[in-house]
């Protein structure tokens, strides 16, 4: 015996006309949903679609960042307070700190600290100005505060050129072997140069040689003369 299963359909579905309308309405709804779905996907980072583990990580990260920033705020507020109170000693110390930072950045004085020495040997094919520039950029990305190449200090206006016999830095010709000194966390700097596809790999695959040594104490003697700003002057903030 067969048992017939019948589903009761709503009134509107029983006429062909009603079904047609319903079909059109469904397609219409689909149109709306498509736009919503696309818009929803447009939002840069949808926390709502992240899994619990990811959310915990993000929250952790943000909390850490917040803590760091709050510490920083407290410190800066203390500095501000002490400067406002006019304590001469504090003001001088703050100024000295600022000068030290600027000396590091502008490369106008010899500096010393932890760092690495990179010895690069290679012909014009394996080592050119681009490789050196890459190296400098990789070092800076890894947090190098001062860099010297074959006795020439690398600062923000330093440029590299290819010449017939090697490379020139700021018009000073240098040849292989290139001795690069960089101050910063030695471990980080060395790792940065050794990443796959990085400077070390690209030089060695094209026939050059790279030797990286880490030093607990390293001195960069080279410096650049202090120049008087010609086209711009600092604006004094009050």
């Amino acid at each position, binding site marked *: 015996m067969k048992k017939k299963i019948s589903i009761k359909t709503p009134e509107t*579905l029983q006429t*062909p006309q009603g*079904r*047609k309308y*319903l*079909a*059109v*309405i*469904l*397609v*219409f*709804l*689909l*149109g*709306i*949903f*498509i*736009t*919503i*779905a696309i*818009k*929803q*996907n447009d939002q840069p980072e*949808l926390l*709502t*679609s992240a*899994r619990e583990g990811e959310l915990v990580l993000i929250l952790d990260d943000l909390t850490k960042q917040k803590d760091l920033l709050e510490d920083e705020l407290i410190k800066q507020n203390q500095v501000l307070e002490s400067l406002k109170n006019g304590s001469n000693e504090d003001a001088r110390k703050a100024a000295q700190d600022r000068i030290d930072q600027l000396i590091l950045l502008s490369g106008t004085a010899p500096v010393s600290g932890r760092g690495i020495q990179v010895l690069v040997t290679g012909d014009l094919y394996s080592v050119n100005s681009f490789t050196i520039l890459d190296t400098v950029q990789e070092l800076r990305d890894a947090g190098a505060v001062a860099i010297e190449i074959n006795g020439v200090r690398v600062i923000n206006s330093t440029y590299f050129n290819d010449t017939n016999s090697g490379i020139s830095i700021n018009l000073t010709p240098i040849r292989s072997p290139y001795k690069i000194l960089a101050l910063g966390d030695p471990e980080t700097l060395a790792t940065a140069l050794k990443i796959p596809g990085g400077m070390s790999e690209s030089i060695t695959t094209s026939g050059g040689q790279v030797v990286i040594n880490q030093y607990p104490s390293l001195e960069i003697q080279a410096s650049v003369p202090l120049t008087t700003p010609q086209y711009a002057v600092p604006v004094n903030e009050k």
Partner: protein
Amino acid sequence: MIPVVGLLIGVIVGIILDPTVPLWMQPYLPIAVIAALDAVFGAIRANLEDVFDDKIFISSFASNVLIAAVIVFLGDQLGVGTQLSTGVVVVLAMRIFANAAAIRRNLFNRK
């Protein structure tokens, strides 16, 4: 023709009104859209083969969307939501491609 107009009006209304979806619905929406698209492609194919039945279209549209949502929901509960969503999307996409191929063949044969 009318369904195409309906779809376009839907898109325009969606852009203009910019409705927000409730949070609990958001993971299901993309899957539901793809499931619905599958139904639409199936309908186009059926229409070209002169076997279109609005009853079947409506029921396939509804059941596709529902089943897709249920599968994703179940996957989320079981902790394999992403994988199951991927599976659903892959299967639906395959069906859409198959339907599209059928539609194409049908259009060429008409000439």
